[in-house]
């Protein structure tokens, strides 16, 4: 892997150069929280952010999108406009890169989602190293570091960003800056390792995921689910902010006075009473506890069965977004019958 370093004081220049690769989106502050937004001025970008309200999934699986248009005798026509817009996501945390890698698994396979895939193809990802806060447990989910899924990844090593070049596109970005990037020295590598170790020590939350799928089977009838179900408001917030929640609803709209119109998909959540409701009224997850359980179960059991790893990146968004303080780390550790402990 090509490894370089970028002088920190030249970051804004670098950001201006990457504009030629697409519209630059980066985390900016929004009333004390953060959100990925198109960058108007580089000075408003907050690379020291903790987490954005929505993960970058919003760029690839937007909350609402039209898939098809029904046009009478012409049948259904795909609506693909705008999918080729080039964007550069600047400052994506490792957990969110990992989250996109997981979504890639879902939207690939024998039936590739052309909408998601097109947007992915047209987006460049520049990752940035971060410091865990009190809700982060990405290390437990093996998402605190990513080997792939980025074009460039920046690590703060003092006066420089230690930079991993992940793809040919990343390399093009580097080259487009002229002589901006410098080779790394032995000291830089040592500094990277020092900081990497320090970050590892900084995690305050830990969940052991080994044999967790099996523990879910063992605790399928646990009382935990009843209590959580009574608390859950079915507000859907955790699903919306989750980097790996991908459930969606599909519905046809019609133009007034015709049968023609768009078929659109909208984010959905397994916490909603309608999620497993089939025509005719049978509901396979009638009760709130069964739905809350299903959400956890799918992340930690179903996703593992399908894709070999949990469908959770440990970003802490669902913990922050839950009005009734349902805390995934607490739940998982309770299932394991262990206290929340700091990782080592």
């Amino acid at each position, binding site marked *: 892997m090509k490894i370089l370093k970028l002088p920190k004081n030249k970051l804004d220049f670098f950001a201006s150069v990457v504009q030629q690769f697409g519209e630059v989106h980066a985390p900016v502050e929004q009333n004390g929280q953060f959100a990925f937004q198109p960058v108007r001025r580089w000075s408003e970008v907050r690379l020291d952010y903790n987490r954005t309200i929505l993960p970058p999934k919003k760029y690839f699986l937007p909350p609402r999108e039209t898939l098809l248009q029904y046009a009478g005798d012409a049948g259904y026509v795909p609506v693909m406009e705008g999918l080729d817009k080039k964007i550069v996501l600047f400052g994506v945390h490792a957990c969110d890169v990992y989250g996109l890698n997981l979504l890639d698994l879902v939207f690939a396979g024998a039936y590739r989602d052309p909408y998601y895939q097109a947007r992915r193809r047209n987006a460049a990802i520049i990752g940035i190293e971060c410091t865990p806060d009190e809700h982060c447990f990405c290390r437990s989910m093996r998402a605190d570091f990513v080997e792939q899924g980025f074009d460039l990844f920046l690590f703060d090593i003092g006066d420089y960003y230690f930079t991993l070049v992940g793809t040919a596109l990343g390399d093009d970005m580097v080259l487009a800056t002229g002589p901006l990037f410098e080779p790394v020295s032995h000291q830089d590598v040592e500094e990277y390792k020092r900081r990497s170790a320090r970050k590892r020590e900084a995690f305050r939350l830990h969940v052991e995921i080994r044999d967790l799928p099996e523990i879910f089977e063992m605790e399928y009838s646990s009382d935990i689910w009843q209590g959580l179900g009574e608390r859950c408001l079915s507000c859907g*917030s955790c699903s919306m902010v989750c980097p790996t929640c991908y459930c969606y609803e599909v519905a046809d709209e*019609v133009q007034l006075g015709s049968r023609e119109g768009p078929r659109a998909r909208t*984010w959905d959540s397994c916490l909603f009473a309608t999620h497993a409701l089939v025509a005719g009224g049978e509901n396979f997850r009638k009760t709130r506890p069964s739905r809350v359980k299903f959400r956890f179960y799918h992340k930690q059991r179903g996703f593992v069965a399908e894709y070999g790893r949990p469908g959770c990146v440990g970003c802490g968004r669902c913990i922050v977004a839950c*009005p009734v303080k349902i805390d995934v780390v607490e739940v998982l550790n309770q299932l394991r019958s262990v206290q929340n402990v700091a990782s080592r």
Partner: protein
Amino acid sequence: MTGCAGDQLVMLNCEDQLLDVVAALDIRDFLMASSGNDEECPLDVALVEGAVLTRRDEEKLNRVRERAKLLVAVGTCAVWGGVAAMDGGRDGDRARLLAETYGPTGAAYDSTPARALHEVVKVDFNISGCPIEKEQFISALSHLLNGNAPLFPQYPVCTECKMRENNCLLIEKGEVCCGPLTVAGCNARCPALNIACVGCRGPADDANTTSALAMFGEKGIPRDDIVRKLRTFAPMEGPGV
């Protein structure tokens, strides 16, 4: 029925689509929009706004029901009873209320405890909102014209609020935001403007009022305040509410 006519105003404010609406429908009886109305003819669809507050409302509603194949309740008053029903219809002593409000003449008024349409007649579909959303109104009409039921989200405002990536007034500011309990469809208009949801669209399908009350209680908000707020537009389900 009895209401502010705000939903009818929304219908008339569908400026871009008003011509399409008129072209697609044969409007027979729409007092606010037309001077010549046929008050007897059979109807395919009756859109009824307002809550039932008088015996006259009740009689009129029964007549509309007889005339119409489909009856659609339009607006929170029609769907849930609305602000007129904020006492939950539990002020059994109407006569005392009338006397206190209007004095001796009060007894002469035709006034009954406020009821939603479904408490009086069979309602086929609901378009909730105070007022209703233009988009939902047009969408409902379009689907009905195709013989399909209107299709609205059943989930709470929080879901749409998160889709818009708004800040959370409930969690970040501790405000009494009714987002988790209120049915979506407004695209979280108020929270997007930094105003806590007042629940004007009525409860979501699966509102967990018990848990929400406990949650607000933990924030130190007096229970009565919350209950009053939740009851402003609709009788929220739940023990003791």
